[in-house]
């Protein structure tokens, strides 16, 4: 259906082009003006994002220096080391299990974080959107409170709560519910909880924005037409909140995948994520080309995941019309 719409749209678009050439030049002039408005942002983006990215791309194809940095000589080692490792004694190549498991953990924890943030964030956004106009801003204000404190401090606070001598374990021990501390810190679970906490507002706010415009009389119309509460949620509320859900999921998933501080503090040395692996290559690992190649791999994973996600969402859209 959407494909059909697109061809129709193209068709009429062509006709319009043929019809009004003068309108077209006027439109182009307007576009030129609008492009100028975006120039400052484009310059910043080029200097701070595209430029460094280009440098990284070049580095990933160079040879690693013995004490960090790079040596100007072409080498494929950076890229091959992403998934393979060379044995230090007999130079045979084997699959880099450690890297694979880090990729897998990053992907798994990011997806989990996104899902849990959605499960917690949607009801919260719905709740705020259904409050009277006067109290809504207060609730939104409360949602933003965590942003007031530095991420590092907030994460240390979580450590304080979940570590073996922390609040939870001390309480459980003193109530006699457990005999020895329950290991929460330095687990994947701890990372996921931490990332969910940090990124939850990024899920709530876009969903709230899409729910705020929602006409709740549609819910009544749904009930009137024999839809139960679950069906009203699935067939009416969720499809109309979808732009917010998509935006929120993307906003949570991307930073989760490259997260650094949270897995570093809550996951410890063993439960590394991609961000930590990359940092390691530029630090103790002294393998800048590998770090650069890993960064680009992360970029490609994000792009692939987004394409798959947006395509999937678009497809289910076609079913509902």
């Amino acid at each position: 259906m959407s494909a059909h719409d697109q061809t129709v749209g193209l068709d009429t678009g062509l006709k319009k082009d043929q019809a009004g050439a003068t309108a077209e030049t006027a439109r182009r002039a307007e576009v030129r003006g609008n492009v100028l408005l975006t120039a400052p942002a484009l310059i910043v983006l080029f200097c701070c994002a595209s430029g460094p990215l280009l440098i990284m791309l070049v580095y990933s194809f160079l040879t690693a220096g013995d004490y960090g940095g790079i040596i100007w000589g072409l080498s494929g080692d950076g890229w091959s080391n992403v998934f393979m490792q060379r044995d230090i004694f007999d130079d045979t190549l084997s699959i880099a299990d450690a890297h694979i498991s880090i990729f897998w953990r990053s992907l798994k924890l990011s997806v989990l974080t996104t899902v849990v943030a959605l499960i917690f964030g949607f009801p919260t956004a719905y709740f705020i959107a259904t409050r009277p106009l006067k109290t809504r801003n207060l609730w939104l204000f409360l949602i933003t409170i965590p942003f007031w404190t530095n991420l590092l401090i907030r994460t240390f606070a979580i450590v304080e709560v979940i570590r073996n001598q922390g609040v939870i374990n001390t309480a459980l021990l003193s109530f006699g519910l457990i005999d020895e501390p329950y290991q929460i810190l330095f687990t994947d679970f701890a990372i996921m909880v931490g990332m969910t906490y940090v990124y939850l507002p990024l899920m709530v706010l876009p969903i709230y924005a899409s729910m705020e415009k929602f006409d709740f009389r549609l819910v009544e119309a749904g009930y009137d037409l024999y839809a139960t509460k679950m069906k009203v949620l699935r067939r009416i509320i969720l499809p109309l909140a979808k732009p917010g859900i998509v935006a929120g999921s993307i906003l949570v998933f991307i930073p989760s995948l490259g997260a650094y501080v949270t897995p570093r503090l809550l996951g410890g040395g063993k439960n590394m994520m991609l961000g930590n692996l990359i940092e390691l290559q530029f630090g103790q690992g002294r393998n800048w080309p590998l770090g650069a190649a890993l960064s680009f791999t992360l970029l490609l994973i994000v792009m692939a995941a987004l394409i798959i996600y947006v395509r999937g969402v678009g497809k289910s859209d076609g079913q509902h019309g």
Partner: protein
Amino acid sequence: MAKAKAIGAAAARQHGSVGDVAAVTAANVTKTFGSGDDGVVALDDVSVSIRQNEFFTLLGPSGCGKTTLLRLIAGFELPTQGDILLEGEPIGHLPPYQRPVNTVFQSYALFPHMTVSENIGFGLQMLGKPQAEVASEVERMLALVRMEALAKRRVDQLSGGQQQRVALARALAPHPKVLLLDEPLSALDLKLRKEMQIELKHLQGETGITFIFVTHDQEEALTMSDRVAVMDNGKILQVGPPREIYDHPADRFVANFIGETNFLTAELTSLSKSGGRVKLPSGKTVAVTLADGEFSEGQVTVVIRPEHARLTKAKSKTTLTGVLRNIVYIGTDTHYHLRLPGDTPFIVRTQNQRDTQESYQQGDELGIEISANAVQVLRD
């Protein structure tokens, strides 16, 4: 609740077939919003029976409780006291999705993420009808409201009148026992509104479904309804066919709300089975009809519709006399605003003919003749 059910069942047995049972009954329904001293009584002990296949209108000013009564029948609100019966069965406690009743909303409330067809088929789909049946029923409904050509459009690409039709088709598609219409025409312009009034009446006849229509527009109510209930302040003041409501208003509010009216204070001098006689301020005595209720001789308020009075220059024998203050020409009619002795305002309406010259002037003292059977005594 159990008692109400027993009454409903008894009523069904008594009448033998379901066809004789009222489509919808409100039994002593009270609805209060909020509680304690802040509580607002939206409906105050309302009882009314709506017959099968009837075009029934709830008419009243905003805040009179008409929409609340509609929402109670739909199930969006639960009664504080009393119950709603559907064909004799109490439904006051059921959620809206378990009531075989559908609503056309004032805002239409069409689902913006669905096409016209998907909107119309939604109710049937939720009822779990097979895909083929849903499709054929949607086709039928599209034809009924003449929207076949726009079946695949998204609803936000439709005009107000088209959205109105889709809302109607969507509510009719699941074959509800009762269709509720909450001021559905208020967003349309005058010409379209007139067209839709006739179309709605036609649809009601064609589908044989009981329509309950809410409006604050008295003309709309008179045009379409089989019976009208006039509401004010959470109460139903009068129920009857449009002609009865117009010609025999029960009280001052009904008389005033529906059409233009002249109010006079008079003295009831004699009572009979079907009516009585009153002595007007002018000293003349006329026959009157009485509103429902108890009357005793003495001072009463009577109403006379402007079109039931006639002006004449010979003022010696007429029922009333007055001084002409104003002449208002409104195309079809001319309104003559007079003052009776004692400064009581009185309006006479005359239908205009072509080529007639205006024969009266401001300041003329004129006689007013009243048609036979045109004086109604109000319940006060």
